[in-house]
């Protein structure tokens, strides 16, 4: 378990990091917590020529509300997010997801930006940010762009991020009254990668119907995705068990799981339906309580 040789740099500023990425375009990778990247390198599934460690770059871990959205610095750890009072007060989906990632050691090291940029097909954040219709801020030398989370996750370990960019911030719109979110994850044991993870964010109208809904799924395709067909089926409908089941079946039709140590395809497809129903039920209950 020895990785191939690589260069290592620990720049003090973001600009310096961006310069390094630009000068070694295509062979440099950004290192944040390292919990996901380093094992891949040991298995020689990733062989970057240069690691740019952004651990010393200041100002990348703030968590704040600005202009009606939650902005989470890319280097904020899962643990810091789970414990943040703003998140606890208004973003139950985010809190639930952050608090269930791995174990305390992982939550104290792993970062939201690292997890999203790494794009493990079974990681939790990509499903959550898509369900919330969030976005990512990507910076390169002299350029900053905001990219929607939906459409950002392209394939296994592949995102819309450019090789010269650093993902610096995650943005999520602030949910209003009568909204609720939930993240449910099927795990083989506590702290495991998801067999299936479903993030649901439900916005109810004054009439009790579903005004808007976001559903993000992880671990059941090459990349975490938003279950658009299921969302369409729910929008404008009353939140009933039948409707949730219909949505669960629609989500399963959109899923493309593969057989692995978590189980065979038929099991996973059934679990997509089950976990989607559970996430919707829980999110709706929270929305109803959030009158």
């Amino acid at each position, binding site marked *: 378990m*020895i990785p191939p040789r690589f260069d290592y740099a620990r720049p003090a500023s973001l600009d310096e990091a961006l310069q390094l990425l630009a000068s070694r375009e295509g062979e440099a990778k950004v290192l944040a917590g390292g919990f996901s990247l380093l094992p891949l390198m040991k298995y020689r599934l990733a062989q970057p020529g240069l690691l740019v460690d952004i651990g010393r770059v200041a100002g990348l871990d703030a968590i704040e509300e600005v202009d009606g959205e939650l902005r989470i610095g890319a280097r904020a750890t899962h643990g810091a997010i789970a414990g943040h009072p703003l998140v606890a007060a208004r973003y139950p989906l985010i809190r639930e997801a952050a608090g269930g990632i791995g174990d305390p050691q992982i939550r104290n090291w792993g970062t939201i930006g690292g997890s999203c940029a790494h794009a493990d097909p079974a990681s939790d954040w990509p499903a959550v940010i898509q369900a919330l219709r969030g976005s990512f801020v990507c910076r390169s030398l002299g350029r900053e762009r905001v990219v929607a989370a939906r459409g950002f996750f392209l394939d296994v370990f592949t995102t819309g991020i450019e090789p010269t960019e650093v993902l610096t911030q995650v943005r999520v719109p602030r949910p209003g009254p009568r909204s609720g979110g939930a993240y449910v994850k*099927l795990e*083989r044991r506590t702290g495991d990668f998801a*067999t299936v993870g479903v993030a649901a964010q439900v916005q109810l109208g004054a009439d009790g119907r579903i005004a808007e809904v976001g559903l993000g799924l992880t671990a059941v395709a090459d990349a975490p995705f938003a279950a658009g067909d299921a969302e369409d089926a729910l929008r404008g409908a009353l939140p009933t068990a039948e409707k949730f089941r219909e949505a669960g079946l629609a989500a399963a039709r959109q899923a493309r799981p593969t057989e692995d140590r978590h189980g065979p395809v038929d099991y996973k497809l059934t*679990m997509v339906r089950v976990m989607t129903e559970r996430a919707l039920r829980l999110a709706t209950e929270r929305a109803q309580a959030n009158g």
Partner: protein
Amino acid sequence: MSRVLGRRFVRADGLPKVTGQARYAADLVLPGMLHAAFLHAGVPRARIRRLDVSAARALPGVLAVLTQDDVPFVRFGAAVEDRTLFAHEVVRFEGEILAAVAALTPELADRACRLIEVELEALPPVLDPEAALAPGAPLVHEDWQDYSANDGIVRDGNDCGFVNIVKGDIEAGFAAADEIVEGRYVADMSHPVPIEPHAVLAQWEGDRVTVWSTTQTPFPARNGLTRTLELPESAVRVVVPHLGGGFGGKCEFHFEAHVAALARAARRPVRLVFDRRQEFTATDMARHGIIATFRTGVRRDGTIVAHEASLILDTGAYATHGPVITEIATMMAAGPYRHPNMLVEGRTVYSNRTPAGSTRAPSGPQVCWALEQHVDAIAERLGLDKLEFRLRNIVAEGDEGPTGQRFEKIGARESLLEAARLIGWGRPLPPGDGMGLAVGWWFSAPGPAGCYIKLNADGSATVVTGAQENGSGSVMGLALLAAEELGLAPERISLVYQDTDAGAFDSGSSGSQTTFNVGRAVLAASAQIRDRLLRMAADELEANPLDLELVEGVVRAKDAPGRSVVIAALARRAQDDGELITGQGNPPAPKMPDSLGGSCAGRVAFPAFAAPAFFAHAARVRVDRETGVVRVLEVAAGHEFGRVLNPIGVEGQVEGGIVHGLGIALSEGTVFRDGNQANPHLLDYKLQTAADVPAMKIAFVDAPAADGGPYGSKGVGEPPVVPTAAAVANAIAAATGVRVRHLPMTPVRVWAALAGEDA
């Protein structure tokens, strides 16, 4: 009894371990030390066409590269001498070692391995143990009729250990039965998974080599070294620094000789440290995958009248302890029940998997899991409560064991009642919850033991033993026995252990034997010191030695505690007068219980279970029927270990055993893809963690056993892991109405069973 025994003592090595002061084999560094790496075959079965290490040897910084051509051609093995240090002509499992490298850095050693040119002709692997038993099946060891082996081994195709237990008249038993219940159960291979991986450091001085190793069995490791490298025992010293867990996986002889040979060739110290993948694929003590089938005849009143069992143990590419473990497995397939008529057969099958061996209570959890589910199924057929059915058949004092041993006073029934009481057997449960019971038994292993104790001039004492402390606390407990005997505080006793040059031969931390055997040696050695102190004190106090006692650092009159002399003063005076006070104990091993002799069981090692421990676990689970996820809410454990010497230590072993057992029950299983392990890492080989651990309630039936070890105690380390998986399985069945017949009982398997599929 007792100022020390029965009280709660924190083990002496606990603080250094939890504060990071303890040093393990992988921590050790010697000047000029090189780093070792192995090239493994990576395929389960192949013929070696070419193996060219010249490019690796030519790499600057590489000081030694060895293959089988560079070491003596010696076959070795615990039950069958079926192995060589390196692969010889053929590959029999993926972790087989083709070559070993010593280089200046681990990175260079890794690169050198990648430069070795290998041409392997792949052969179809033998993976299905039932097919491997068929006549004409391809042989894993084609010429093994020529190997040396234990005299009791029957060589039959791929079966390297046939064992049976024959008792009564099985056909007459079935003829008298009102109901006959059958069942088949399959368990996957699992692993011991100690936190610390295997590590070895070897250094030569002249013709002598010192090997620091992560072995649980320093003396068998030394035997392996002397045999494979053709050295006298006096030329080899094996030392274990602190051991980071073993769970049986570090029993016997592993990689000490490879590293010693590298160090000799490179003329430098060499250290090897395994990574986690090697720990899964290249070691040879996995827990056996088994196939168990049962057929049991019962009368309507719940009396068992005939019991037939067939066991197949997949022992992998090499036998290791397999045939011995099959003997144990046949005893476990009988269970702690009265059987007038019984036929149990066990087979030990070679395959092209990673070898299986002595993982904690080898065969115990799997066979108990299968048998106890079968026992529940019988009770269901009869419409009897599962506790009641077991109580009607469980063994008690005077009953006859499977091979004819007569049980002394035992706590089988009491353990079961304790577990049932602690879990609240029979109380109403919410929907989705279920409760399950399982009983079992396990042996203490009689063996030779020696101990040397020296009384220091300040009245402290040092115990020198060859025993090995694998983390169970049993060697730490030897200090308690010496303290009790010598009237000293336990912290006044130091220990020298797990060093083959210091202590007498010891079979190691295997078979739950340390307290049972070495404890007797400690008592014998202590008695010599005690006698000397009593005589010295009697002279001084002008008393009869019989009227004196050793208590709290003094020798005093039993009827007048004020008349006393300090032990330290006696020790100092003796030394000043030219006498050193030492004691030595090497009592003979206890005899095995008598057996019938009508069975094959016992030809290799185990004709009966000496000083057996009895136990029962009860589990309460909640099953998510939609996902198949099982949450264990509570486990209750009733155990009889004879006399409990250190309750905190025994509780630790029981708690650890339960957690270990939950892993075996729910998540720990090796998946093979075409003969290679598909999950040789902790990402997909799922251990239970603290967050998964349920509430645990533990009770001991605490009474000295007539056939026990020191103070009537029995072996503790292995029994607690045996019945947990079985109790969980029965709880799942109670909660869902379906039986999961494949271990581990993963969510997918539970889900499939609920869907009516045969998981």
